[in-house]
C-alpha cells in the first residue's frame, strides 16, 4: 500500500528545514539578493546541504548518503518552495544526484562508474554542487537523448545547452553528450578551460537558468550508451515528480498569505475575507492544494519504492501541481490587489517561480499527453 502520509521523521525534517529557512531566508533578503550578482544564497545552501544533510537524503548510506529516500527530499522541496529559497537543490540534490545514483557502482559501460560514485558522495556530503546540463524544460518519457553536445574521440565536448537550471551555482556539470559510439554522460568541472556558463535574464529570479557552451572542453566519461539514457530518464522522471512537491509548497505559501491578508485588509467597512466571492475562490484553491498534497506524495512514494506506476503518478502530479502553483500565485497577486503588483511584496517571487516551474521538466499539457499513452486514452488520428 502506498504511504501518502508524512512520517514522524519527515515531519521532524520539515521542522528543521522550515526553521532554517525562516531564520535565514526571509522574503526581504531573497528580494534584495535577486538583483545582485549572487542570486544564490551559498551560505544557506552550505548549511542545508552540509549541516542538515538535505543533499544526501536519497543517497544510500553505503554510497555516502543518509539512506533515506526521495520521499524525504520531497519534503525538503516543499519547504524550499514555501520559502521560494534561492538554492540549487533541484539541480544538484535532485537532478544531478539522481543521474549519478543511477550510475553508482556500474563499471564496464565504457564509463567510469567509480568516478560517478566519488562524485555522488561529494554531492551527498555537500562538498560539491552539480547541475544536470539539460534545458530545464526537458521532460521525461520522450525516449530521445539530447543531441546538443557532441563528444569527440579524445573525450572532449562541444556544443551548447541552453536554459540549464542551477548551472551558475555549480562547480560540476553532468553533461549528456552524443559520441561516435552513442550517448554518454560526462562530468565537466566548471573551472575547465573552453567552458562558458552564461546566466540568462531569467523569469524565475530565485532559480535562474544559464546557457552552457562547451568548445572542446575536457570531460570525464561516467557512462556509455548502455546506461546513460536510462540514468538521464531516471533523473528527469524523479525531477518532474519531486518538483510537484515544490509546487505544493509554493501553493501553500500563496494560499496562507492570501488568507492572512484577506482577514487583515478592510474595505467598505468590512474584512475582505468576509465577501463570499473571495471566500469561494479560496475554498476552491484550498481544495486543489489538498489534492496536490495527495498527488505529490503519491509521486514521491512511487519513485521511492520503485513502483511501476511511477510514470503515471509523476504525470498526474506534474499536471495537477504545475497548474495549481500558477493558479495559487495568480490568485495571490490578484487578491492582494495593488500591493500584490509591487516589487516590494514577495508575491511575485512565487508567481515567477510557479510560472517557470510550470515549464520545468515538462508542462502540464505535455504530461497529460504522456499520460494519454500511459493509460490508453489515445489522441484522435489526424
Amino acid at each position, binding site marked *: 500500500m502506498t504511504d501518502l502520509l508524512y512520517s514522524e521523521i519527515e515531519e521532524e525534517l520539515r521542522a528543521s528545514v522550515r526553521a532554517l529557512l525562516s531564520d535565514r531566508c526571509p522574503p526581504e533578503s531573497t528580494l534584495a539578493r535577486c538583483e545582485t550578482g549572487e542570486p544564490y544564497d551559498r551560505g544557506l545552501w552550505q548549511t542545508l546541504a552540509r549541516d542538515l544533510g538535505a543533499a544526501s537524503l536519497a543517497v544510500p548510506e553505503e554510497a555516502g548518503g543518509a539512506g533515506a529516500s526521495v520521499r524525504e527530499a520531497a519534503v525538503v522541496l516543499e519547504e524550499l518552495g514555501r520559502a521560494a529559497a534561492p538554492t540549487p537543490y533541484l539541480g544538484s540534490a535532485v537532478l544531478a544526484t539522481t543521474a549519478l545514483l543511477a550510475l553508482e557502482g556500474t563499471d564496464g559501460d565504457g564509463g567510469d562508474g567509480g568516478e560517478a560514485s566519488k562524485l555522488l558522495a561529494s554531492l551527498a556530503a555537500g562538498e560539491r554542487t552539480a547541475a544536470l546540463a539539460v534545458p530545464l524544460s526537458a521532460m521525461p518519457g520522450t525516449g530521445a537523448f539530447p543531441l546538443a553536445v557532441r563528444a569527440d574521440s579524445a573525450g572532449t565536448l562541444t556544443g551548447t545547452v541552453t536554459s540549464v537550471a542551477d548551472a551558475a551555482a555549480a562547480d560540476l556539470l553532468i553533461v549528456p553528450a552524443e559520441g561516435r559510439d552513442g550517448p554518454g554522460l560526462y562530468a565537466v568541472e566548471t573551472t575547465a578551460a573552453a567552458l562558458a556558463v552564461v546566466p540568462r535574464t531569467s523569469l524565475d529570479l530565485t532559480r535562474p537558468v544559464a546557457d552552457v557552451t562547451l568548445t572542446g572542453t575536457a570531460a570525464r566519461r561516467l557512462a556509455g550508451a548502455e546506461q546513460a539514457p536510462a540514468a538521464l530518464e531516471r533523473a528527469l522522471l524523479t525531477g518532474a515528480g519531486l518538483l510537484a512537491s515544490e509546487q505544493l509548497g509554493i501553493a501553500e505559501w500563496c494560499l496562507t498569505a492570501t488568507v492572512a491578508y484577506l482577514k487583515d485588509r478592510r474595505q467598505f467597512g468590512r474584512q475582505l475575507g468576509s465577501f463570499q466571492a473571495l471566500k469561494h475562490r479560496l475554498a476552491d484553491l484550498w481544495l486543489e492544494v489538498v489534492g496536490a498534497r*495527495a498527488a505529490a506524495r*503519491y509521486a514521491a512514494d512511487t519513485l521511492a519504492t520503485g513502483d511501476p506506476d511511477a510514470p503515471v503518478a509523476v504525470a498526474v502530479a506534474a499536471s*495537477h501541481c504545475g497548474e495549481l502553483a500558477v493558479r495559487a500565485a495568480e490568485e495571490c497577486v490578484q487578491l492582494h490587489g495593488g500591493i500584490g503588483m509591487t516589487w516590494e511584496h514577495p508575491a511575485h517571487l512565487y508567481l515567477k517561480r510557479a510560472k517557470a516551474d510550470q515549464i520545468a521538466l515538462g508542462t502540464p499539457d505535455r504530461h497529460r499527453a504522456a499520460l*494519454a499513452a500511459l493509460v490508453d486514452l489515445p489522441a484522435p488520428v489526424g
Partner: protein
Amino acid sequence: MPPANTPVTDPDELRRRTQALLAEHDPAVTEPLDFLRARYDAGLAWVHFPHGHGGLDAPRALQAVVDAELAAAGAPDNDPGRNGIGLGMAAPTILRYGTEEQKERFLRPLWTGEEVWCQLFSEPGAGSDLAALATRAVRDGDSWVVDGQKVWTSSAHNARWAILIARTDPDVPKHRGITYFVCDMTDPGVEVRPLRQITGEAEFNEVFLTGVRVPDAHRLGGVGEGWKVAQTTLNNERVAIGGRRMPRESGMIGKAAATWRERPELRTHGLHQRLLSGWVGAEVARLTGERLRQQLTAGHPGPEGAGTKLAFARLAQELSGLEVELLGEEGLSYDDWTLRRPETVDFTGREAGYRYLRAKGNSIEGGTSEVLRNIIAERVLGLPAEPRTDKDLPWKELAR
C-alpha cells in the same frame, strides 16, 4: 477469554469469529435473513459498533477483514444501497443519541434491511437554511402531533421509519426550537407523493404530515436539541455521499474513458484535452480520498474531508457532460423518460444522458457546493462567517 465487552482489536480474532459464524450458519443452506440476523448477533455487522448492537467495539478499519472473509464464503450481504439513509445516517445518530431501548428496537432490523429508513429533514421553505424548518410538533400527553411538509425524501415509499426534525418551540431562535424524532411511516397521517426529477424518474418524494402521532419514546435527544442531534446525521451524510473508496477509473471517469476507447471515430482534439484533464482530476480526487482514509486510520483526521463531496460533484458533472458531447448524434437520444420509482440510485448507471442529468443533483443534495465552500472558508481557512441577521430572532418572527 477476555471479558465480554472488551474491544476486539486483533484481526485474527475477527477472522476466527467470522469463521465460527460461517461454520454455524452455512450460507449455502441458511435463509439470507437468518444469516444476517446471526451475523448481527455475532457482532460482525458493523464491527465498530458496541457489543450487543451488531459490533465488537473494534476499530472501524477492521470491517474490511470481516467483509473479505464473508465475501470469500459467498455469504449474503444486507444490500446496503437499499437502505443508505438508515445505515449511513440514522444508525450513527441512534447510536449516539438513542436510549438503550431505542437501540435495541431499531438497529438490528435496520442493519439487516428488514426495515428501510428515510429522512424527513428538508422542506420547501428550508433547504440550505434547514434550521428555518416549519414542520410543527406539538406535545399531547405521551405523544407529539406533527403537521407539515417535507421534500427530497428518498426511499419514503419503501421506508418503515423516518428520522424527522420538527419545530417544537417557535418562540426561540431557529436553531434552538427543533427536536429530533423517529417517525413511523405507516402512520395514517403520512402521505407520500412521488417527486419527479429532471431525469424522468422519481427517486425522491414529497411527504405530507397531517396530525401524525409520534410517541415521546421515539424522541432522539432532548427537547429543543434536535439541531445538535441532526449534525451527527448530516456529517455522516457527507461522508456517505463523497467518501467511498474507489479504484482507479471508477465512477464517471471510467464511463467516459470506456466510451473514448471503444469509439475512436468520435474522438476530437478538444475533447481529448478535456478528457485527460478530467482523468487527472479524477485520479487526484481518488488519491485525496485514499490519503484521507490513511489519515483516519492513523488516528489523525484532517479537515480534508470537507472538500471530498465538492470535488466529486464537479468531476461527475464535467465528465458526464463530456461523455454526452463525445457521443455526438447518439447524445441526442435519451434512454427512457418513464416515471420510474427506483429503490436505489446509481450515479453511474443507465446511459450517458441519464448520468449527465443525475449528476446535476450532486452539487445540490447533501449540502450545496456553495454552502460547502462557505464551510471550508469559515471552518478550515478561518475566514469571517456569513452575516446571520436571523440567528438571535425568535423563529416565529422570521421573514418568510
